[in-house]
């Protein structure tokens, strides 16, 4: 690959990623999403369709195929922006690819590419809808989807050109790496960019991962391992098969050539032997001849004349005379000439019986009285048949492109398919491997600059070499590996999708349904039920949840009923602690008093109290414990009892508070406090001694006049802080005067508009009823507060106490 090609591919890979980022930002940051969904999908589809077209036009031609990064665009559109966009982009890319042949794009892959680009758009759309529920996949799955899509694409190219399988395999092989890599990367980067832009973590924390994602990851790893393992096995198997086939092919050819060489040499040697036999004539005649001179004359190494008993009677080598041919395995073979079954016999070039280190080829011809055996050394033999050698391998080929070589002991090629005759073996490039490997073993080497497999044997002093270019030898292996890899990827991907889909449908979707029902229940709707009945497990889970919720509902109802009963009890106790009978002192006509407490909950924190200390002194108290409910009411009971006993012991109101405060501060771990207003009225004079612990000021009115608040700086609330000294205060009531005390439940009563009832409204109410008796005053003020609050809930206890001083001057002293 040249740098230009790499750049071309990089640009084509980056385009879908850039488009994804831009469109994503447009969707996020502008009002683009307000446009009709289908219009939006059309726009996105066209944009990605044009990028697919650019992918085709940026493509590179390989053997009539256009290698390209076209599919990433429709996949990204379908996965990240919506099914329709993916389909539209795929159709645009596919149709343009079909017509792009008109302006020079590859013809060979036209059909496969067009179909594939449309198919991957649909593929991505289906995945988005059924596998990812309209959410984006993880980047790892995106990589897998890009990869599988390209495998599908290349498989389609293969299928549509099955009649030219060899070319198709070559095209697919050439395209596999760049196309799968670039498309896979492109889709992965697009998903990664969107994930980063949306601020999601690339790898989610364990508790945020969905089951389906964990299953995806696990299955992905398993599938990958299975794929790698089976591919390694397939590859090893194919390599071994390929070697064995190659060796068998080479061996058969070598055997053929070996036979040819042997035949040629046998023919040549027998002819020579016949001419020697003619010169010798007969066994008898031979005894008188100089056989050594004859070897010189006829250019042979050795002549032996054997009699009818198989004994050498004459030889060009003196010491051979008397040798019994039957004594050696090699020489004994020639005895067939004596039993009349044949008249000629030739042996292959081999070590002689007499001396194992000496190699000879023997041919023998029958003569009268025995036979003549002629021996040749290698060079004599080769000279004899040299003229015939080139013809042996000239028209021979191994497989389609392989060839045979015959070379002599000096390393020169005597016979070859393509005119390497006379060339030194070293110049062809395979001399080294031939010289270093053993005969009959398969070797790899380089012949005429092409990598080849080779095998050689030796025959008649020649080396016979068979050569098959690796390209041809490995073709079947590569095709098998490639096709099985593709099929495995597609099968595993289909399996992956089916398992994922089943898990999602059988488990994940049901869990979501259970969860949404549970969400209703946890939001407080205990009457909601879970009803997922797709399979036995979820049916029983639903039943269990429903039973649990039912039991819970019953338990809560029972607890609530119990609590209600206890609160009603508590309310009765609290109410009975407050004086409730009016008039409380019927014999006392010198004053009238009325009070009421209306708790916001069943039990409250407000309280009032009044009691005669003696015939002339009436103590009255109103107080408000911070907080409400059971804790406040318990604190209230404590405070009430304490204040009453201190008051009855004869202390002044301020002293009661000073002492009471210290006692209430002890062990006040809940940090509650009480505001209180305590007065002691001298019934003889109308003089009131009082103390105020953080309580609202009283309202006082002369007979027939308006009320006014008696503002006097209060001291701190009771139980707030130890050691406070409360100030003694006083006021005087004239006969007919009314004093009204209340808690902040009155002034801070709030209506639906968040307005407070306030002091002004209180005074207005009081003034409206100034001529009424104390009971009416209290009841009517309360009614006004209720009317003001309206539908808004009552937050605080509402407590009022009114006292009207009548005095004794007009009516005489009681009792």
């Amino acid at each position, binding site marked *: 690959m040249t740098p230009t090609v790499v750049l071309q591919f990089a640009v084509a890979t980056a385009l879908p990623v850039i488009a994804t980022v831009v469109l994503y930002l447009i969707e996020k940051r502008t009002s683009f999403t307000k446009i009709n969904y289908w219009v939006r999908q059309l726009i996105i589809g066209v944009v990605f369709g044009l990028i697919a077209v650019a992918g085709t036009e940026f493509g590179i031609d390989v053997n009539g195929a256009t290698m390209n990064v076209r599919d990433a665009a429709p996949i990204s559109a379908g996965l990240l922006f919506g099914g329709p966009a993916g389909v539209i982009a795929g159709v645009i890319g596919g149709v343009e690819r079909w017509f792009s042949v008109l302006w020079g794009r590859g013809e060979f892959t036209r059909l496969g590419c067009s179909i594939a680009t449309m198919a991957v758009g649909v593929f991505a759309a289906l995945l988005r809808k059924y596998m990812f529920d309209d959410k984006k996949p993880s980047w790892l799955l995106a990589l897998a989807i890009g990869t599988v899509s390209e495998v599908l694409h290349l498989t389609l190219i293969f299928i549509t050109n099955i009649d030219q399988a060899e070319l198709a395999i070559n095209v697919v092989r050439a395209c596999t790496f760049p196309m799968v890599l670039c498309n896979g990367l492109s889709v992965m980067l697009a998903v990664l960019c969107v994930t980063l832009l949306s601020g999601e973590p690339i790898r989610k924390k364990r508790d945020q991962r969905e089951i389906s994602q964990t299953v995806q990851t696990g299955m992905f790893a398993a599938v990958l391992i299975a794929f790698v393992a089976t591919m390694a096995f397939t590859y090893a198997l194919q390599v071994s098969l390929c070697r064995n086939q190659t060796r068998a092919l080479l061996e058969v050819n070598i055997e053929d050539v070996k036979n040819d060489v042997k035949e040629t040499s046998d023919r040549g040697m027998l002819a020579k032997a016949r001419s020697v036999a003619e010169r010798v004539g007969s066994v008898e005649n031979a005894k008188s001849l100089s056989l050594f001179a004859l070897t010189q004359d006829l250019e042979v190494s050795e002549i032996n004349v054997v009699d009818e008993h198989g004994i050498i009677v004459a030889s060009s080598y003196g010491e051979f005379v008397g040798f019994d041919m039957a004594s050696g395995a090699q020489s004994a073979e020639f005895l067939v000439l004596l039993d009349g079954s044949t008249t000629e016999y030739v042996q292959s070039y081999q070590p002689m019986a007499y001396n194992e280190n000496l190699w000879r080829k023997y041919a023998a011809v029958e003569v009268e009285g025995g036979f003549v055996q002629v021996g040749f050394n290698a060079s004599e033999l080769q000279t004899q048949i040299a003229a015939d050698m080139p013809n042996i391998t000239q028209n021979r080929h191994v497989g389609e492109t392989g060839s045979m070589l015959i070379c002599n002991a000096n390393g020169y090629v005597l016979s070859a398919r393509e005119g390497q005759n006379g060339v030194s073996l070293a110049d062809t490039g395979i001399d080294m491997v031939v010289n270093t490997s053993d005969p009959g073993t398969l070797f790899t080497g380089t012949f005429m600059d092409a990598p080849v497999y080779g095998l050689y044997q030796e025959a008649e002093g020649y080396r016979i070499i068979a050569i098959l270019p690796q390209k041809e030898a490995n073709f079947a292996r590569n095709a098998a590996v490639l096709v099985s890899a593709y099929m495995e990827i597609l099968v595993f991907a289909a399996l992956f999708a089916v398992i994922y889909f089943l898990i999602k449908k059988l488990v994940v979707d049901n869990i979501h349904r259970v969860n949404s029902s549970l969400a209703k229940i946890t939001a407080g709707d205990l009457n909601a039920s879970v009803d997922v009945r797709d399979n036995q497990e979820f049916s029983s889970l639903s039943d269990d949840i429903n039973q649990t919720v039912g039991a819970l509902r019953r338990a809560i109802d029972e607890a609530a009923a119990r609590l209600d009963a206890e609160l009603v009890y508590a309310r009765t106790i609290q109410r009975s602690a407050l004086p409730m009978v009016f008039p409380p002192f019927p014999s006392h006509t010198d004053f009238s008093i009325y009070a009421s407490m209306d708790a916001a909950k069943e039990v409250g924190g407000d309280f009032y109290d009044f009691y005669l200390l003696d015939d002339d002194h009436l103590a009255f108290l109103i107080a408000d414990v*911070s*907080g409400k409910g059971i804790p406040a009411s318990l604190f209230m009971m404590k405070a009430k009892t304490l204040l009453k006993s201190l008051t009855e012991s004869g202390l002044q109101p301020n002293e009661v508070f000073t002492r009471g405060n210290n006692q209430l501060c002890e062990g006040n771990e809940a940090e509650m*406090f009480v505001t209180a207003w305590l007065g002691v009225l001298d019934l003889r004079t109308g003089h009131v001694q009082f103390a105020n*612990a*953080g309580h609202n000021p009283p309202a006082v009115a002369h007979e027939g006049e308006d009320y006014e608040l008696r503002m006097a700086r209060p001291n701190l*609330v009771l139980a707030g802080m130890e050691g*406070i000294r409360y100030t003694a205060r006083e006021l005087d009531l004239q006969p007919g005067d009314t004093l009204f005390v209340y808690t902040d439940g009155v002034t801070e009563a709030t209506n639906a508009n968040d307005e407070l009832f306030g002091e002004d409204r209180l005074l207005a109410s009081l003034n409206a009823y100034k001529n009424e008796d104390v009971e009416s005053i209290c009841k009517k003020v309360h009614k006004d507060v209720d009317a003001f609050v309206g539908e808004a809930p009552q937050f*605080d206890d509402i407590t009022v106490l009114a006292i009207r001083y009548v005095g004794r001057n007009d009516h005489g002293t009681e009792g």
Partner: protein
Amino acid sequence: MDISSTRVDDNLVVSVSGRLNTSTAPELDNELESLIAETEHLVIDFADLAYISSAGLRVVLSTQKAMNRKGGTLVIRNVKPEIMEVFEMTGFVDFLTIE
């Protein structure tokens, strides 16, 4: 009710806005409880406080007590007249430091 806190020099300033009533007081209570541990000088800013109920007073009271226990200081700042009225009526003005 909204609570925010900032550190100014040695002081930890806690601003409380909205209504401090029975339903919001526990949140302020929790917040202050953790902040008390972090500072010697706590300032509560009531500039945007619209209403305080007795539950709110209780939080102020317990915060003051907690600061007293650890020997720190509590300053209440920017108290509106309506809120001031409540502090006066309940006698809180006597023991709170209000600026």
